[in-house]
């Protein structure tokens, strides 16, 4: 059996392989940062206009459309990332730490937009459409979206919802907080049930609870101080609830 000596040439091949891995990682990390940046901008755009799902105004429709256009750009970047991995015939999980952050931020933005449009939670199926790589040459379609990143992105969404709640209340929007409350509660109770496999989860749940408490406090304040708005008349909480609940019944049909 011939004994091959490890030579400088062998180490040279190892160098090339390592370089190729590192270069790919750096490229993906850079694209991921672009995703993060654009996603944050989309979120701020939605915040600035304090989109309220009930209003049905053309302004709201325009903001939602603008945000959708931003998402199309992000989707392009995600496809570039997936292509980079797929053409190298690599396992996407090898680079997960490179692109995870960008994916989470995008899910956060996408789910916020989905709530503004529909009052519902983004589904995995809807999310996957933005990650979809077309073409028969790719063996896997959704290379980048893992349940863990989806969950962490939704956890971060609750922070933005809390901000929307407090900001809109200070601007006199009495409906959005009461619309957010059951949604936040449902999310919180589902998060509590998740298995302990995701390491970052306990801290995120702690933060989620803090956000929920703030939303509850806003609703409490609006309930209690509502009586101060019309002298001598209690603000009928039922009026507020009816308008908010009208939104839900009107939009029960899926927006898919």
């Amino acid at each position, binding site marked *: 059996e011939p004994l091959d000596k490890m030579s*400088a040439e062998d180490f040279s091949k190892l*160098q090339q392989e390592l370089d190729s891995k590192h270069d790919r990682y750096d490229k993906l990390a850079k694209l991921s940062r672009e995703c993060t940046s654009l996603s944050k901008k989309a979120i701020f755009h939605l915040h600035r206009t304090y989109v309220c799902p009930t209003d049905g105004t053309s302004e709201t429709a325009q903001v939602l459309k603008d945000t959708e256009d931003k998402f199309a750009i992000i989707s392009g970047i995600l496809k570039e990332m997936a292509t980079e991995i797929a053409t190298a015939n690599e396992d996407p999980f090898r680079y997960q730490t490179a692109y995870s952050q960008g994916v989470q931020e995008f899910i956060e933005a996408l789910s916020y937009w989905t709530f503004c449009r529909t009052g519902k939670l983004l589904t995995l199926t809807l999310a996957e459409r933005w990650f979809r790589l077309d073409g028969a040459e790719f063996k896997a379609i959704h290379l980048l979206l893992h349940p863990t990143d*989806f969950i962490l992105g939704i956890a971060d969404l609750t922070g933005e919802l809390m901000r929307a709640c407090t900001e809109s209340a200070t601007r006199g929007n009495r409906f959005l907080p009461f619309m957010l409350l059951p949604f936040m509660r449902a999310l919180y109770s589902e998060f509590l049930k*998740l298995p302990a496999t995701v390491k970052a989860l306990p801290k995120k749940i702690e933060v989620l609870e803090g956000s929920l408490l703030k939303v509850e406090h806003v609703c409490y304040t609006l309930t209690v101080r509502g009586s101060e708005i019309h002298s001598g008349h209690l603000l009928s909480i039922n009026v507020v609830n009816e308008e908010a609940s009208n939104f839900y*019944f009107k939009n029960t049909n899926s927006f898919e």
Partner: protein
Amino acid sequence: GARVRGGAHIGMETGTSAEGGVMDVFVTLTAALDHERDTKEKIRGVVMEMEQVGRNLLSLMQGVHQCSTADEGSDLCQKADGMFLSAREHVEMLKRVVPNGSYYQFHDQWRFVLQRLSFLTSLLHYMRTGQLASRGDVAAALGVCVSQDEGFHLDIDDYLMGVLCLANELSRLAVNSVIVGDFQRPFAIAELLTTISSGFRLLNLKNDALRKRFDGLKYDVSKVEEVVYDLTVRGLKPQSGEKRPAP
């Protein structure tokens, strides 16, 4: 006051419509997480057994520091072969519980044990040939592939870590060779460590675990250089083939 529709007191209770489809989404997510957890548990079971084989092998291979004759050496290699057979069987089991195309999703679970087995393979290869085992040699010995295209493979970082562990072990062996009266071996080890050292200098490493480990290589090299110096300066360097110089 105004009438409230149905039973949906928004903000008072959560009815299913107010939950905005949250529960359905989480049913899917939970199923995916549970599936991942089940796979991890299966893998953990196999890896734990592999780790014990690794520990037993490591313990056995410590005997290398006391081998003074060629017979003792080949005896040790034979015993090690037996244990490597078991290691290979466990690798086969591991391959069966890792889903296709999910190598890196669970890689952290077997990273350590595979690095150790890679090191021990190289050590055994050194015992037999005096050479540094290539990635292909190690992969073949363990029954895995070299590249991820081919299947369950030996990750490049894990192979390189094994090589650095070998360098460390051999620096200790240089010292112990002198104790058992083999004055030739430290010189051979010095040459091998030079090969490893110059090979590693070709690599562009990031500030990761491999880099940190590589930073320790220079201490292994200088330890062996000291042994070589001690022997040389006392005229103890053996001529061709001999373990000790002629008196």
